[in-house]
């Protein structure tokens, strides 16, 4: 059955996924908007950087984060100079890793939603003398709602299922950096298959429900878009 450590890991995972999702929505929405509107020559390289976590193995990402956050790394030197210490093995470090890791899962659905609005509604708004900011908040954002929802669900689910990065930069500290996926891994490695099954089964059911929600949402979203 689920013991104290398991609940601790579940709680921490939910906390991490919620915070990651909120921060990602704040970060990804303007980024996706810019990507959907701009004709800048920076569009392609930035789009590629945003997509990178999708194709990189988590071990590569985790290792580079470790190097980046270490006392010799640029991020580590910055946080040390600010008196925050290094970020590896802390919840904040995990949060940064999760944001990097789940970034494409937030940006891409939002970007697609913005792109599928097309130019017309925004042009109409402009002829009615709506400022670009006004047009963004009263037209683009509401129309992109299904995309935002998809982004939120995917970011949350993906952070819950994240394994490689948290394993690499977490340090496996109970209550601070040990999340469900690394806990399951530990159980499997230690041959504690009963505990592993409880947690893994829960994860499986959770993932199924998320994907089910997503596909129901897509159907409704499609009818909204039309």
């Amino acid at each position, binding site marked *: 059955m689920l013991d104290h450590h398991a609940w601790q890991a579940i709680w921490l995972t939910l906390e991490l996924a919620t915070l990651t999702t909120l921060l990602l929505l704040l970060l990804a929405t303007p980024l996706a908007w810019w990507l959907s509107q701009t004709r800048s020559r920076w569009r392609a390289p930035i789009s590629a950087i945003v997509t990178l976590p999708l194709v990189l193995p988590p071990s590569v990402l985790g290792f580079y984060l470790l190097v980046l956050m*270490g006392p*010799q790394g640029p991020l580590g030197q910055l946080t040390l100079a600010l008196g925050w210490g290094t970020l*590896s*093995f802390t919840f904040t470090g995990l949060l940064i890793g999760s944001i990097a890791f789940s970034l494409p899962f937030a940006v891409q659905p939002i970007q697609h939603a913005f792109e599928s609005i097309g130019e017309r509604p925004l042009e109409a708004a402009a002829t009615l003398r709506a400022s670009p900011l006004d047009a963004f908040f009263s037209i683009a954002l509401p129309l992109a709602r299904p995309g935002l929802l998809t982004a939120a669900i995917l970011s949350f689910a993906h952070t819950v299922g994240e394994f490689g990065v948290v394993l*690499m*930069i977490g*340090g496996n*500290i109970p209550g601070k950096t040990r999340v469900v996926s690394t806990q399951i891994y530990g159980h499997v490695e230690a041959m504690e298959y009963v505990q592993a099954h409880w947690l893994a089964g829960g994860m499986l059911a959770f993932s199924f429900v998320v994907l089910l929600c997503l596909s129901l949402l897509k159907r409704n979203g499609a009818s909204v878009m039309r």
Partner: protein
Amino acid sequence: MKPVALLMCAGLFLSGSLQAAELSVAVAANFTAPMQKIAKAFEKETGHTLALSFGSTGKFYAQIKNGAPFEVLFAADDETPARLEREGHGVGGTRFTYAVGKLVLWSKQPGLVDDKGDVLRRGSFERIALADPKLAPYGAAAMDTLNKLGLTETLRSKFVQGENIGQTYQFVATQNAPLGFVALSQVFADGRVTEGSAWMVPETLHDPIRQDALILAKGKDNPAAPELMRYLKGESAKNIIRAYGYGL
């Protein structure tokens, strides 16, 4: 006619056993470097070929239980091979200790770790890395050591744990942890610690880190399996193993 057929059978059998075989070997990740070197020498000497897979012992256990085609296991501990043998996945009586791991407290910074380990008592560092004692024998040995020194509780809040000794090494090598307990074989070459500062943990402070090998049920009839085991017990293999910082 009959003796001829018998002779032919015997001939077939003989040529079969003399023929070069391919052997599938699962090797604990910490033994990667010496095993690659040993495999080359073994292949050259016997004509057999080895298909080496490197990974964690816990994962190999799960895979072997579920029908993985490994024929020999070189584990990172002595418990897993014993357990596999008990559970009928190994060939009885083939288990032996091929290497004994040595624990070292290591820092990439020169001068941080003194050669008596007093740095642990001073505790003037922010984090100390060790392998998860539940998963890795080196982690268990590190825990033994801290327990014997009576420092576990004082240092516990500074622990960061790698899930294996490779990851623990990474924490220290990238200096995210200023020091940590790693395997001597990771920081050792040409008879000395190559970088930073280190304390060789005396073997009186922890249970020996025995790494055992076992012929698995799938390798029962492969002639290369007992030959490899014999080779590992020979002097040339032992010299390679020692050169990588393991005891025997």
